[in-house]
């Protein structure tokens, strides 16, 4: 564990060069398989087959809660003893399971073989299996069925990084384009309502050539080329960024579209890159920003001056902390994130209040000690910690909800604030 070097906070804004506490130890986080829970709903004709153990099946079932019975578009090929005995056999087994699955769900157009800890440790080569199966299906008049692979294992990925791995695996299969007209690609899963809002705003700004990754259907994969510029809607996409850049696309640096300020800066960055006049930009965005700012006022009453502590979970912590501090007046005790990508997070770090205590990684027991020492008004944490902390008298906001709720963009800024205000209001409300 590294010691924090004391920071002389000269400015009141900016953590670009701030020290970060890097901790290693027990981590209370989800693995990347959890990404399947929302990805299978986002891409409607995709199916996710985890190659793993009963633990993986159990995790998905627990995380997907009551959704599993709706014949979900994911399943687990559970490795058993016989598979562990020899690799060749495991590949035959996988082919058998996939055939059975495709028979059951003929409407599938995109099948992801998702690696897990057990499959990675025994070095089962799922990328070769995906190629083999794609070729086989092509021979069986199922050329419309693509098989891809990525790893959602806990040893390699944390929670939302599962989406990063999934999107990065799509990159080699995205059609190429040499269009000279610039196109905009928005990367990262957002709620459908948010996607529709974003399209409308881009269109009003005069940017009509917009695509989203991941798309809603396998057939709608966006094309990528040297004139593709992309904006990240989500912060956890480091590998997808590299893969897009390798295809010649370029990233538009921007903070994330969380809160009014974030959303505005995000659209402005795109507008600037597409040569849209500042005045035009302001004309479109100011009414939206103004309406959104007004809707934050009510929550500011509840949240201003409250001290908040973030346990690491999804990499959304820094942008959300920035929003809560700057737009709602909250005080940041500690902002923990599972992984901090300095370049992608650059614009966000520049906006964070100076002197913010940042931590990357986790030693959960030590972090709990720190949390209790600072006695924050609100703790943002996973569901393994939330109820135990509530029982100790802390108000918590369970963090997974931030991934499962439409929170991006102007019209969701108040909803995002409400997620944090609600537990505090509830605590004040209950008289038992």
């Amino acid at each position: 564990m590294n010691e924090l070097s004391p920071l002389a906070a000269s400015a009141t804004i900016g953590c670009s060069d701030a020290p970060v506490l890097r901790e290693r130890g027990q981590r209370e986080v989800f693995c990347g398989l959890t990404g399947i829970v929302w990805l299978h709903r986002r891409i409607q004709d995709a199916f996710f087959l985890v190659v793993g153990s009963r633990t993986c099946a159990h995790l998905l079932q627990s995380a997907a809660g009551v959704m599993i019975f709706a014949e979900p578009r994911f399943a687990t090929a559970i490795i058993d003893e016989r598979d562990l005995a020899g690799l060749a056999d495991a590949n035959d087994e996988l082919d058998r399971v996939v055939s059975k699955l495709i028979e059951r769900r003929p409407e599938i157009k995109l099948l992801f073989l998702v690696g897990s800890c057990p499959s990675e440790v025994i070095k089962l080569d799922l990328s070769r299996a995906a190629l083999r199966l794609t070729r086989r299906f092509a021979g069986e008049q199922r050329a419309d069925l693509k098989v891809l692979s990525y790893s959602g294992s806990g040893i390699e990925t944390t929670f939302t990084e599962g989406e990063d791995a999934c999107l990065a695996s799509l990159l080699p299969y995205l059609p190429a384009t040499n269009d000279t007209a610039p196109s905009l690609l928005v990367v990262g899963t957002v709620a459908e309502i948010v996607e529709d809002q974003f399209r409308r705003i881009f269109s009003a700004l005069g940017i009509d050539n917009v695509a989203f990754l991941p798309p809603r259907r396998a057939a709608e994969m966006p094309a990528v080329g040297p004139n593709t510029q992309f904006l990240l809607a989500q912060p956890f996409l480091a590998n997808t960024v590299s893969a897009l850049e390798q295809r010649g696309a370029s990233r538009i640096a921007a903070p994330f579209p969380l809160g009014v300020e974030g959303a505005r800066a995000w659209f402005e960055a795109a507008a600037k890159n597409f040569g849209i006049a500042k005045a035009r930009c302001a004309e479109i965005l100011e009414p939206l920003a103004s309406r959104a700012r007004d809707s934050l006022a009510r929550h500011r009453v509840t949240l201003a001056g409250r001290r908040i502590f973030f346990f690491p979970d999804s990499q959304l912590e820094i942008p959300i902390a920035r929003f809560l501090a700057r737009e709602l007046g909250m005080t940041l005790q500690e902002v923990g994130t599972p992984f901090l990508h300095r370049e992608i997070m650059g614009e966000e770090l520049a906006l964070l209040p100076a002197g913010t205590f940042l931590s990357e990684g986790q030693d959960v027991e030590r972090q709990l000690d720190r949390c209790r020492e600072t006695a924050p008004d609100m703790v943002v944490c996973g569901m393994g910690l939330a109820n135990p902390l509530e029982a100790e008298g802390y108000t918590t906001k369970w963090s997974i909800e931030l991934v499962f709720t439409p929170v991006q963009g102007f019209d969701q800024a108040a909803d995002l604030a409400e997620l944090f205000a609600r537990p505090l209001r509830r605590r004040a409300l209950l008289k038992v």
Partner: protein
Amino acid sequence: MQLSLWTYEGPPHIGAMRIATAMQGVHYVLHAPQGDTYADLLFTMIERRDVRPPVTYTTFQARDLGGDTATLFKTSVADAYERFKPEAMLVGASCTAELIQDDPGGLALALNLPIPVVPLELPAYQRKENYGASETFYRLVRACVKTDQPAVKASKPSCNILGPTALGFRHRDDIVEIKRLLEKLGVTVNVVAPADARPSDLARIPQAHFNIVLYPEVALTTAAWLERQFGQKYVNITPIGVNATRDFISAVAALAGIDAANFLRAETSRLVWYSRSIDSTYLTAKPVFIFGDASHAIALARVAAEELGYQVVGLGTYSREFAREVRAAAKIYNLEALITDDYLDVEAAIKAANPALVLGTQMERHIAKRLGIPCAVISAPIHVQDFPARYSPFMGFEGANVLFDTLTHPMMMGLEEHLLGMFREDFEFHGDAAASHLGAAQTPAPATVIAETFTLAWDAEAERELRKIPFFVRGKAKRNTEAYATQQGVALIKLETLYDAKAYYSQ
């Protein structure tokens, strides 16, 4: 590899966690990759526990695999001991750690901690959650009980209650109910374990005169060992339902040397009268399909058949360890037991049996919902709604009250059923609608279920007539008619065939 959309049990280390979390003063160090901490949510969210499970996970990552995962494990054990100071420690591996073979047991023992350290060998690619719980409880009891000195028995008849765990279906209230019964009967409860017991309590187990195996899936192995080791006899009757509770009381009384005749005359459940009251007449011979863990499936079949007058048309379990017992129970109802952990098999069996009620797990709830069949949950796996705030045991006489309500509530109520038989074209209360006392429940789609499963040709008139039959008996009518037509060599089913079949099957 096994294609699994739903697993009835978690991996065995979840069973071990259920023991550690149920107890006090026990800590479990689990060698596991990052992400396996999802299991904490089972306890903090589904069971709504207000403390973290006493589990330290090593949460190794890929970068650790190149290094020394064994040292990582040893450090985790040492740190967990320092921080939590448990009275006993469990050490083991999850499925991924099993592959890297770090020998958690050996590593932990090398630390020479001043407490019992119990290594768990739980083969994650062969066995499942309940085995993990059973094996962990057994190892822990063996580690805490001293076998080299005779146990001092209490003067009054006393017993241990073995089996209740964390995340157990209704375990919390079953214990209260059974303790109350034993107290009234004059039997002292020496130790309840694993729930709320400490390692020091486990050491006192031999002081009781006999054991009660409340949940054989968890405690039978341990009770059998205690009998071999200390001559402690055990009662292995699941006291679910009025009759099973009576049998249980008689068996306990016999081991305690108590005459229970007066007690049995005085104690009863409302189920007895409720089931005999005339508004329960319509429940007679309602076909019911039962699936769950072995002890709950067997017990509920008896309740359904003997105490509510239902007809058991399907009985099965996912507990392979108790397949023999379930097969024997199924024979009572002239059935072939369904032993499977594949929910698609269960779904197919439910479809084929066409029950009016399904008693099962969380998964059967979903199957039943899809097929439009009333359903009640009677066994783990369960979700958050089956860890209710109110007192709701399944065991004992109060448990039987809960059972009566649970097993009758989802059914269409009697008068409504009569009216549906008479007037089938009401815009609101029609044959395909769900029971109105369940509010605006979604309308099941029996029409589509029927459409996709016609095996013979029906003419339009016969099909229309079939649709006039209320949905909860329509499937049976369809099957009977087709079976009769096949037997008689009828190629096209007409109106007459339908009524011929009806007459034939009511002989």
